[in-house]
């Protein structure tokens, strides 16, 4: 495990590069759509677009630090739009970004099935961390709906199956 965590062990093979505009606009678009789309679907907002962006870039860039920073910033941004404390989503997505970047070093990120499976697992992990922070770390009285969290993980997989190949097309080919 420590081998994976070490920066020296990061493999540069297969690291994808994207235009700067994609790096800037994709997270921004994800945040805006995450804030706007729930008004359209009305109660069925079973997706987390910023988490998908975090996972995607951490995986394809194979860089835990980049995944960690992106997860933290997107998570805090999401927290800022809610009435919750800043840092709950931030911590969850920080961990998710780090793990995605670390796993990306070891696995074949070209394989769609593995990417979707990772998306599901990291979505579920984020929900777990979220509840852990609220109930254990902060000791707040917080109810949660496991069905909704499960559906969010499934929804993320469905969206990832469509969006990940689309973002793949924007990569810079050597």
């Amino acid at each position: 495990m420590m081998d994976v965590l070490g920066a020296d062990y990061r493999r540069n093979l297969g690291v994808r590069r994207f235009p700067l505009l994609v790096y800037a606009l994709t997270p921004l678009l994800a945040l805006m759509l995450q804030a706007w789309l729930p008004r359209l679907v009305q109660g069925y907002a079973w997706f987390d677009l910023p988490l998908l962006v975090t996972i995607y870039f951490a995986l394809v860039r194979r860089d835990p630090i980049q995944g960690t920073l992106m997860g933290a910033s997107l998570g805090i941004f999401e927290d800022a739009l809610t009435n919750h404390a800043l840092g709950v989503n931030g911590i969850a997505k920080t961990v998710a970004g780090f793990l995605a970047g670390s796993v990306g070093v070891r696995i074949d990120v070209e394989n769609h099935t593995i990417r979707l499976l990772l998306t599901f697992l990291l979505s579920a992990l984020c929900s777990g961390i979220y509840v852990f922070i609220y109930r254990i770390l902060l000791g707040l009285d917080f109810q949660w709906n496991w069905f909704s969290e499960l559906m969010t993980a499934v929804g993320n997989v469905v969206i990832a199956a469509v969006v990940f190949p689309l973002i793949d097309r924007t990569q810079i080919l050597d």
Partner: protein
Amino acid sequence: MESFFVRYRNLLVLLALLLAQIIGLAMQVHRADNGRHSLDPRDSAGVRLIRLWADAVVTPPEEFFHSTKMGTIWIWQNYFDLRHTHEENVDLQKTIDRLRLEQAALLEDAKQGQRLQAMLDFKEKYIYTTQPAQAIGSSGSDSSRVFYIDKGADYKLDRDMAVITADGIVGKVREVFPHTAQVLGINDQTSGAGVILETTRVRGILRGNANGRLQIVGVLADQRIQPGEKVLTAGGDQIFPRGLPVGVVEKVVTDPDRDGFIDILVKPAAHIDRLDEVLVITSTQPRFSDEQQSDLATSEAVKGAEVAAIKEQQKASQIMAERLPGLTDPNAPPPAPVAPAANGQTPAPTGPPVPKLLQPQRPDRYTPGAAVRPAVDTSNSTPKQKTNPDSDEPAPARRNP
């Protein structure tokens, strides 16, 4: 030493970020007097600044999306989908006429109520001014039921102002930004509104649950509470004026945490998940607003005479009904209870009750059960009452001119 930082750079960055966020979280939570933890209802300056930045980034595109959507709907509704508009106008005009009639009829009661409240120094407050606003965005999270409106400090909005629709309450303003405001929905877990059940007068606190549904918590078990009962604001929370519709009781369930208590699930009156336009109550006053008074005056001027005529007609009918003799004698004693039979069984009813007829003032031979007495002493009769001795029929009564 350098190799350590280089070697574990990834892990160190992760730990540093986690530590910073955990410290930040700890600064936002405080321990209440009852020993329980809670989030600060008011954000610190730093937290508010981050929220302001996030709002500034997200709001412009949200407003663009919302304006585009509303513009498309407006063009469709006003240029293409105009079928049945004339019929709708006629129906609406009829509705306005009917409402004006009702309003004029209720005006006197309202005035009397205000006079009585003034006499009793009753601190009832009416919705005085409201600010219409458009809901443009949401938090994007199922666990946070907040949404954003397109009016903020520039329209004199302030924290804790009530947000309603024509159907019922929606939430309260939680945070105000220069051009937008964050509204905490009544179906959020951290919200709270004082409510009262209309019929049983049971009071409770309304809040949301994990599914975003409304529930009244902390209510003692009461068999009288039934589904369908209306829920209104109680006015004790200093946010929502008293008497606004909240919803109807949907289901009553036992509180899983406390014995003897129930949770009342409420179906909201307002479409909380489909909000487009809302009203922010910017002030309440102990009298009607100028606009409301103007509206009342218009209704009274237009329909006042009609209402007065209807009331006069009702009054005349009532007087006439009181004067006309009825079939039932109001002075008659109540019917005796049916005595049980000797064998202890209640006798079967023999048929519908026969109404007791009033005794006529001048019985004649057609009067049921009355025999006409023959005129013995004609001198006692008045000269105008002439009796025919050859006939049993009495003389017809003289018609008054």
